[in-house]
């Protein structure tokens, strides 16, 4: 089972999952890569763009907070919303120090409820530790992944552009 399948599988065991029916959830690394997703955002470029922008926004906010010396209370969030639509970002926790959760919602009667349960959803996945496991698998090896990449291989990578 790959990570996305594991996320889908474990989401089914989250008791309040029906609350997130109209919410798009992206699970992001600290540098904006999409690890997994739930909801309406299309997999691929759209999700990647959202991920990069969300985490970029977080980094910019963190830089501002540092400049004005706002204290990090370890459960900081970042919000952009009106009374019914918008998005928010939850910061990594000690259990998963490199994972951000972003939630995009539309036409919600009670966005506060979504935020409350978003934290529970994050805690649900933290307990399962599936995200932590993936991180260590992906970065544990020190040897080079590709040695001696040839010109031909690079040409093949870019062949879609007719170059």
């Amino acid at each position: 089972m790959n990570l996305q399948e594991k996320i889908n599988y474990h989401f089914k065991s989250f008791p309040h999952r029906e609350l997130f029916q109209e919410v798009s959830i992206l699970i992001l690394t600290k540098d904006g890569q999409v690890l997994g997703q739930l909801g309406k955002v299309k997999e691929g470029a759209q999700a990647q763009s959202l991920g990069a922008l969300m985490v970029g926004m977080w980094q910019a906010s963190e830089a501002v907070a540092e400049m004005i010396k706002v204290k990090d209370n370890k459960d900081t969030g970042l919000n952009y919303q009106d009374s019914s639509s918008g998005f928010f970002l939850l910061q990594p926790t000690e259990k998963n120090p490199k994972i951000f959760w972003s939630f995009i919602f539309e036409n919600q009667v009670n966005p506060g409820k979504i935020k409350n349960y978003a934290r529970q959803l994050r805690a649900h996945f933290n307990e399962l530790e599936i995200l932590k496991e993936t991180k260590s698998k992906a970065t544990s090896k020190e040897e080079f992944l590709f040695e001696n990449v040839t010109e031909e291989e690079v040409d093949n990578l870019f062949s879609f552009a007719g170059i």
Partner: protein
Amino acid sequence: MSFVNHNKKEVNCKIVYYGPGLGGKTTNIQHVYKKTSGENRGNIIKLNNENERTLFFDFLPLELGEIRGYKTRFHLYTVPGQVFYEASRKLILRAVDGLIFVADSQLEKMDANIESLEGLEKNLTEQGYDISKIPLVFQWNKRDLPNVTSVEDLEQKLNKWGSPSFEGAAVNGDGVFETLKEVSKLVLMNLKGGLS
């Protein structure tokens, strides 16, 4: 930082275009965007000010083909070139895997090139990177203009690491893919997280 997902057989890398203001960084990724099809790239995100100058960054996610069974995805970023956006440039350099320094070849821009390159070195050092160990490619841009510094001079004054370099005129697309392909190759060869 690059992300290698062995389960999905994917590698994700971040490439940053750096250089002085109005040097052609945005023009480079605009050309890449124009030349690639919708299946391979996402939307180009441009965070500009009202004068169309880059305010925060430009961003283009690019899905390339496969290499040795791994799907490759590159995230291309530009930094804002104007001097007073130093804090933004620092942020964008976080977790960078490869750099393209887009130098403006015009004679009167040499000082701006040097200042920008010194800023790059300083910003990387502050974040614990060593510029000599990061994949870096130079593009001598605007070679189509009449009043340009010789390539020899550019090499001597800017490329003290002997990094690969290419002449370019990004406005016509010249040198854009050559530069990107070279840095992509270096980034891929620099990736850690070896095969099982």
